């Protein structure tokens, strides 16, 4: 009897228990902790289709857009050179002293512009290696010939990134595969050799087509152009000049007939410049799809919004060192094509919004309107913080000028002068003004080097020795002003590490390389600091 009651009670309790347990636990999964993924794809579950091939390759190209981006390659190449200065202005621009350090060549291992270049170039290299690995592993649905041409293109692109790194940081790790290994440092010469051998090897497999399908891509001609650039600076990189090889590589491009000089200088820098006959390798930007071009925001004044009818209000920092402006031939149209000077007119009613003056008293203290601004790249009405001009990273004029420089430096100055005259002609109303002679090109620079006092006079002349082929350096300056290359040219002509300009005095030969970033050395114990910097 008692037993019966107890067992009944137990069974009743068990029923309640079952009820309670199942009510509570029904909606629960057991102990499964697998992650459910919704708005991305996991690598293990993803099979790329044919249309994904270009998307995968794209990741190796898009880093190039840092060139005209915030504290990007443009800043790296122009801020330490003699053309651009970003002084303190009423609305700031001290920015922790970053621009002064660039101007004074007093950067440290935490300086952002060189770090950005390192990070971005290796990002591109890493992505290129990733594509190559995916092809080698058969993860992408491509045919054998397609595979060969994609691998060649990626290797050429990788060499392009290395051509920037060999110039800026020199002793960087050569990473030729996508692996888990901690990269090991190489010497500048090894990096140079790697670029040369890679490009030489892949050129036969690269596309020769120059049309919309290869616009912004590494073609055979872009590869030759990079090769020529590296040869042009070979003496700086390795100690051994390679002038003949410069000419050979340039002649390949010239001989292709695929390019010609743009009849109008300013056409090269228009919003609609895709398809310009000069473009060997362009970096396409678009204010909607690829809005990283912010260099114009750093250079224009807030009130240029009214001058160009922009949507965005620029920030107004960088302007041109008056010494460089003074070097122009007044008849050279590139002065007006490149710089915004004097009265700036309101786009809607023509009234004077402000007047820009050439003088810039000091990097520590300038007014808003001190210094001419770069107006070379077209600002369309309605322009935003991201410009739509495609950046002419490698353009045909550069091919001609590289050949001219190699000729000039190998005692063929008159041949060089023919080319330079040809380039100048589109920028002078009177063809006679465009003509230069070989002797002129061999002569000294027309830039009056020396540091400037607040009143604009030279107070410390510094090294006043003749710059060999200095006039040719001036030609490069006028033609390629604000094209993110002045630093490289100044180094090759020996000006960078010897001359005074604006508020700058030389800081030693070690400054031709930037220090390797603190964070980069922090995370990779294999990296030794470049010579001349605290280890």
């Amino acid at each position, binding site marked *: 009897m008692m037993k019966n009651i107890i067992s009944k009670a137990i069974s009743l309790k068990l029923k309640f228990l079952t009820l309670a347990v199942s009510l509570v636990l029904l909606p629960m999964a057991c102990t499964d902790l697998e*992650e459910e993924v919704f708005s991305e794809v996991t690598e293990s579950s993803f099979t790329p289709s044919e249309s994904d091939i270009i*998307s995968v390759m794209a990741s190796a190209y898009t880093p190039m857009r840092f060139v005209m981006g915030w504290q990007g390659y443009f800043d790296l190449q122009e801020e330490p050179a003699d053309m651009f200065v970003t002084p303190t202005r009423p*609305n700031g621009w001290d920015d922790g002293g970053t621009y002064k350090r660039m101007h004074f060549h007093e950067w440290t291992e935490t300086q952002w512009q060189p770090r950005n270049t390192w990070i971005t170039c290796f990002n591109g290299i890493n992505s290129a290696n990733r594509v190559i690995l995916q092809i080698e592993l058969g993860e992408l649905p491509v045919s054998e010939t397609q595979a060969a041409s994609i691998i060649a293109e990626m290797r050429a692109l990788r060499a392009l990134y290395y051509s920037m790194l060999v110039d800026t940081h020199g002793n960087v790790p050569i990473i030729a595969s996508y692996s888990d290994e901690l990269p090991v440092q190489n010497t500048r010469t090894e990096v140079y050799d790697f670029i040369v051998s890679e490009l030489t090897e892949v050129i036969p497999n690269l596309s020769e087509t120059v049309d919309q399908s290869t616009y912004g891509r590494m073609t055979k001609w872009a590869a030759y152009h990079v090769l020529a650039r590296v040869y042009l600076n070979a003496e700086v990189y390795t100690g051994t000049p390679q002038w003949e090889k410069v000419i050979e590589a340039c002649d390949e491009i010239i001989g292709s007939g695929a390019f010609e000089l743009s009849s109008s200088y300013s056409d090269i820098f228009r919003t609609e410049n895709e398809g310009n006959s000069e473009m060997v390798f362009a970096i396409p930007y678009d204010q909607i799809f690829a809005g990283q071009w912010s260099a114009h925001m750093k250079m224009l004044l*807030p009130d240029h919004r009214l001058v160009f009818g922009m949507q965005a209000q620029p920030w107004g920092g960088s302007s041109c060192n008056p010494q460089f402006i003074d070097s122009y031939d007044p008849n050279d149209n590139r002065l007006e094509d490149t710089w915004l000077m004097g009265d700036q007119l309101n786009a809607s009613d023509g009234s004077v919004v402000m007047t820009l003056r050439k003088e810039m008293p000091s990097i520590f203290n300038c007014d808003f309107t001190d210094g001419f601004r770069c107006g070379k790249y077209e600002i369309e009405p309605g322009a935003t913080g991201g410009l739509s001009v495609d950046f002419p990273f490698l353009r045909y004029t550069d091919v001609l000028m590289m050949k001219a420089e190699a000729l000039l430096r190998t005692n063929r100055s008159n041949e060089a002068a023919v080319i330079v005259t040809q380039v100048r002609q589109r920028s002078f109303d009177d063809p006679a003004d465009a003509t230069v002679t070989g002797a002129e090109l061999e002569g000294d620079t027309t830039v009056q080097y020396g540091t400037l006092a607040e009143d604009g006079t030279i107070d410390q002349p510094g090294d006043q020795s003749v710059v060999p082929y200095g006039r040719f350096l001036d030609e490069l300056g006028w033609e390629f002003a604000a094209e993110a290359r002045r630093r490289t040219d100044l180094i090759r002509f020996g000006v960078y590490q010897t001359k005074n300009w604006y508020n700058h005095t030389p800081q030693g030969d070690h400054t031709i390389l930037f220090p390797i970033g603190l964070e980069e050395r922090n995370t990779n114990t294999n990296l030794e600091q470049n010579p001349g910097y605290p280890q």
Partner: protein
Amino acid sequence: MKLASFLFKECLGTNRFKKLMLFSMFSLFMAQAGLSQQRVSGTVTDEQGIPIAGAAVLEKNTTNGTATDFDGNFEITTTGSNPVLVFSYLGFVAQEIPVQGGTVNVQLKEDLQQLSEVVVIGYGTQKRADVTSSVATVKSEDFVQGNVKDAAQLIQGKVAGLSVSAPSGDPTEGTQINLRGTSSILGGTNPLVLVDGVPGSLNTVAPEDIESIDVLKDGSATAIYGTRGTNGVIIITTKKGTTDMKSTIEYNGYASLSTIADRMNFLNADELRQKFSEGYTFNGANLQDFGASTDWVDEITRDAFSQVHNLIFRGGNATSNMTASLNYRDIEGIFLKSNNERYTARVNVNHAMFDNRLKANVGVILSEQTFNALGDGSSFNPYIYRQAIIRNPTEPVRNEDGSWYERDVYFYDNPVAYIEETIGQNRYRNTRFDFSLSYDFGDHVTVKGLYTRKGNSNIRGFYQTKDHVSTTKNGQGGFASRGTDDYVGNYGQFTVDYDNNFGDHKVTGLVGYNYEDNTNEGFWATNRRFPTDGFTYNNLGSGQGLQLGEAGMGSYKNSDKLIAFFSRVTYNYDDRYLLMASLRREGSSRFGEDYKWGNFPGISVGWRVDQESFADNWDWLSNLKLRSGFGVTGINAGSNYQSLSGLTYGDYFLNNGEWVRQLVPSRNANPNLRWEKKEEFNLGLDFGVLDGRINGSVDYYNRTTKDALFNYSVPTPPYFYGNIAANVAEIKNTGLEFLLNITPFQTENFEWTANLTYSTNTNEIVSLSNDEFQLTNDFFDEGYTGEPIQISTHRVQEGQPIGNFFGLKSVDITDDGIWIIERPDGTRVPATEATNDDRQVLGNGLPKAYYSWNNTVRYKNWDLMFNLRGALDYQILNFSRMFYENPTISYNTLDSAYDLVYGKAVLQDVQRYVSHYVEDGDFLKIDNVTLGYTLPKDAIKFAQTFRIYASGLNLATFSKYKGIDPEVNRNGLAPGNDERDKYPSIRTFTLGINFTF
């Protein structure tokens, strides 16, 4: 169902469990079989002889019990052979009286130490006397009164070691909480908040609806909540109906007036004109006198009025009870359009059946929150406030034709126009459904299951009109944005409780299972170029921005899961020796395949010295307990999928004339991602003397966080991105906490109780690397000044505390007004020559000690509460001075910009981050003063209680700090930065009434 059967096998199928149940059945049977019966009656009163209604009368070691009626009378029939009656009532010391029938009149003593109070611990409760870990309890009568932001502000300054601050005056922003220092880098300092046992937030229920808040502080206490126990656990218990409760309606209501706590002194129009006449010239904003006199901060601020109403219905009979509450709060912020309106409703019904063995609970919490949005999706837009402080005071608000007065200056817009031409609203709806069942198998075993379904959703709308600068300056033609987010979560737990006494041995046990999942999803869209302002954000498709490629949209969805098994035993020998041990095994979906599960043990012991026989003669001693504990808790990864290799379509690339998206890895996946674990040792002492008139506790803690999660910098290549979520750091926190409760006066008409807390914290980053991830240097920089100074503010370095300011040390000024910097080697250079290598530690943003002094004075029907609170030994980087105490800038400046620096020269340097702006933050606040009057019992017939009160919050601050409020952000790796456009803190005055009928 898989798990249900699994649990059956694991828990119910074992022989041990069957034995337990049989045992419990047997003892129940024995109890009911009874030996002799005696009738006992009497009255229970307090020390003043006032009858106590609802006091529990229980025959010891039985379930036989009753409660006193409204006049304190009881009657019980005892069943044992030597019956002992236990009389207890919340807030009084329980008394045990052996009886042999007849009449027993009992006078209960007020329990000043609350030893008998029930403390809520993880998945259960414990008597205060039995607690062996560090747990603080604050009851509603001790809460901070007035217009509080959230539940945390109710206990501000009441718990030693728990710092609660309200650095923002934004009515939609909550408080900042920090318990025992910063123990995690990525995990933040937010504690786990449980609302009636289920994870929630400090806003799940209205502050007026809360009965008590328990804070589990040390690791041995929180280990049972393994997952998120590191920053402590705040357990919120809501007001509830109880068995046999008279039906009541309780109303709490108040109206508040808030003002800006303090203003920064910028040049007003007269002062600026004075500067012009002194020959000062300026660029940008203060270029010239524009003829008007405008106080821009006045133009965008107001005296803010708020009202809060709270109604609670409660009642119950022998088997059922219910609570229903409705809360409405309409809070205005001090800035125009800044507000927060919220409705919260809660219904909770309990039902007991089968002799009170089966208990069921159904609960619903619903809330709706609406506020104006001046930022896209956010209440406050700091840019607007910044514009008001930096604007030229001689500019008018409007042109003569009524249009907004605007000028073309860099980052310079009319703040009034910005507010008036912005229309935005966010609305949130939160739901929570609770259901639980428990079954009591007699005296010893209770089984409980609980399921909660939670949901939050919101919809946002934002529009900038064609008269907004987004169009008048930037040509957008009107800008609209809409967005919505949705959250759904399931939470379930199943527990088996065991509870038994064997003579002097008391044992409890608990095993349980816990499941939680969370799913978040949402989408948003923006558009421009609208034909009219009339639609505001309600007709997104009518804008042409979409066709022009200027529209934006996005959507997302993600989910995560947490699953845990846990157990706990407590053991009490003769009320002298106490032990608690727990173990939780928890898994998180966010960790790497092989590292999902972690074990979190906790153990604590206690020794009640005063219960020893040798202490029998120490009459002055009423309580002395030594406690010690050790526990391990964890921090979950901050976001989902970090251990998974994912791919995403990113930036565009021009391919053959068309823009296509690139396909890139979503992140650096870390398949070794695992639990961040904190080990904590706690040593404590509870004491009470003179009948508890003086009581308190002292705690020492030492917590070490290992495998701390951090977004670690890694080299690229081989990594794709520059950082990876990894378990790299080790952080140590040690500290002391003192709590002292004193009752200096206690008479029938006058009582004064004081509560003092003091806590210290020392923090050290022990390591920033592990075997896998190494730093060449042992530091990295954090914090950011923003433009135009653009430099980091803090350094995080091994061997140093978190929160070190790192910058140039200014010691003097040149005659030209340029800072003179002292380098680390002691040499001095002008700031123009100083480099980044000349930076050094300038102070630390985290207080080394907090203190508070809370007083409650009751005189007859009057009550007065005043709370003082402060923090010691820390620094603040005053951004306002760093940016605006400088006459060379192109915006309006602080008056002090023209003072001589170091008594020598007016500053002529650029804006710089130098030690001159790193100020001591030490402060004392008169934080909350409340004066209340309770009407005599018979004054209003229908009301049981009626109290009116007036209170003030954030009344006065004593500090050398020159900014608005020394209570600034203390979270993260850059604490102590007083941002220049932070929503200023507020001072609030409140008038309120409470009544129950």
